[in-house]
């Protein structure tokens, strides 16, 4: 503490030390990601050789996109990406619809049991997914699927098993309730007098004002869905329906080609990182909003 006090008298020294420290920390947080992107451009042998020097973090030597081309040969990478985009997009869109309606219903119209339902929904927030995963596996393995070929038993190895259990989300509902309650209630009364139905009030009055909460819920649904792992490894055993994180297993069968692994990791990570960097304020605020619920 003495050192800090002495430094405090000297503004320039403090600034230099602070920026030095911040930069060192930045290196610690960045180096694995930089290493991933750089290695994805190199042949395996060079990755191994470079790992003992600073060259591991520099795009030098035999640089090419060969590993990227190879990832699509070794595994149905395109299919995995399509599957993840589909299940993520469906969950986000259906989730926004179902949860915003529920949030509106629990915030604005008055009906018997509303308080109880809201309390129950908030109470489920302390139940971690890991607690219900095993019984849920049993449930979905017994549910009927109605398809083109009639009714089959079990939801295993489908798209909807990756989507439907995650559409309704207690925390999203909670965020919508909070937001709708914060809007001026005169808007609702005015619309009532004009003869608008409750659904019209929701769709035409509230939703157009709710951009921020829709953005937050989108980000909070998108990230865990794109990164989903525990649930898909249990319910999807065939490659046709596998999402990107489970598809990674293909690169660890037989001999591991690290260059291809790094290329695959980059392919599935870079879109998220680019989105994060483009919308970083929204991302950070959304994720931080999970911290304000207490």
């Amino acid at each position, binding site marked *: 503490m003495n050192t800090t006090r002495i430094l405090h008298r000297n503004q320039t020294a403090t600034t230099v030390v602070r920026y030095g420290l911040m930069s060192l920390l930045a290196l610690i947080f960045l180096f694995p990601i930089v290493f991933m992107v750089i290695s994805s451009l190199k042949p395996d042998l060079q990755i191994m050789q470079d790992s003992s020097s600073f060259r*591991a973090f520099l795009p030098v030597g035999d640089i090419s996109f060969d590993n990227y081309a190879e990832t699509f040969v070794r595994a149905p990478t395109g299919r995995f990406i399509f599957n993840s985009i589909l299940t993520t997009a469906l969950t986000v869109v259906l989730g926004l619809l179902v949860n915003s309606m529920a949030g509106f219903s629990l915030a604005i119209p*008055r009906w018997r049991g509303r308080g109880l339902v809201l309390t129950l929904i908030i109470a489920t927030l302390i139940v971690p997914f890991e607690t219900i995963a095993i019984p849920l596996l049993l449930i979905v*393995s017994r549910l009927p699927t109605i398809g083109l070929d009639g009714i089959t038993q079990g939801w295993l190895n489908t798209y909807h098993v990756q989507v439907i259990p995650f559409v309704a989300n207690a925390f999203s509902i909670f965020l919508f309730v909070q937001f709708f309650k914060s809007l001026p209630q005169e808007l609702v009364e005015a619309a009532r007098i004009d003869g608008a139905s409750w659904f019209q009030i929701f769709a035409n009055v509230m939703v157009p004002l709710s951009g921020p909460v829709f953005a937050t819920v989108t980000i909070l649904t998108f990230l865990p869905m794109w990164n989903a792992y*525990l649930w898909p490894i249990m319910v999807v055993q065939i490659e046709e329906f596998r999402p990107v*994180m489970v598809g990674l297993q293909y690169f660890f069968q037989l001999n591991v080609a690290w260059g291809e692994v790094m290329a695959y990791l980059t392919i*599935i990570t870079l879109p998220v990182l680019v989105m994060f960097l483009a919308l970083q304020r929204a991302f950070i605020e959304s994720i*931080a909003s999970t911290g304000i619920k207490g």
Partner: protein
Amino acid sequence: MTALDTSARTQANHTHDQSGQSARFWESLAGWLMASPAITLLLLFMIVPFIMAFGLAFTNQRLISPNPTEFVGLRNFERLLTVRLLVLQPVVDPATGVAVLDEEGQTTYPAVRTYTRNNPEYPQFDGLQEWTTWSWGDDKLVWLAGDAVFMKSLFNTLFFTVVVVPLQGSLGLLLALIINQRTAGVNIFRTIYFMPVVVSMVVVSILWRFIYDGQNGLLNNILGAVTLGNFQPVDWLGNPSTAMWAVIGMSIWQAVGFHMVIWLAGLQTIPGVLYEAAAVEGAGAWDQFVHVTWPGLRNTAVFILVTITMAAFGLFTQINVMTRGGPLDSTTTLVFQAVQKGFEKQDIAYGSAISVVFFALVLVVALIQRFVTREQGE
């Protein structure tokens, strides 16, 4: 006459309130209808499986089985939670009364399996597994458990939590304090520190497997370079004494940016006037932290400790990708065991019993949080 009177009055009231009552009816109906998709889905995929976890834990349910499911009472929990102590005394030669030594001159002990395999004199040890062994003078204290791997999972999970919670919480606060300045470029650093949070834990685990590699790993190479070659390479994930620490280091690296952001939000609620007043009174940086910053962060601190604890209890992805519980069960965890038993071995009942134990831990933490925040509120 009176009856007619009442009926007439009701009639009048009815006409008067008709519009109001029907409006209230439509309001209720709209409310129920708009909430019902979410309620149905939450019931089916959240509440029902949650209740089922408790029910299934008392059965022998399997994912696929030709036999009907049976109620087995507490059998699953007995197997999970039975712990017994077996004290082994050195083997003594009955003729001389001297301890029998092995070829290397070490004291010998009777084999544990002579107690746990069909020994009618020790029915309480029957079928138990060796969990861990301590030395006590010349004696050996052998802890036996109904399911030794589960006990290891429970203790590994608690160990991980006890280390990660204070470490990640304080590092997050440190980052927040460093970054909580109005100087140029601070936003860039905040973004960089936060970046690993949006990267999938699966991706992070694979990357760190490479970093922790015993031969070409970046960590060994960096440590070798820093110590000018005086560092002996370590197989971080392949060694039972370092594997859990390696998982801890990586987990903190991935998640600490999240807690930094929450600490930052907490810091920004503290009025600047308080710092100005403290500065006028001549308080140094440390005094300001102790008397202004820390008291203002109490709620944030409780929230952060609870969220890290809950996340730490759920440790799974890193384990499944990096170590599969090994080496020698040194990194196996509760959720990893629940998935191993419930999914890979298809023993839904036993996996559910593990989930119930897991939830009990979560509930204890949630109740402690309730207690701490309520006490503060009054």
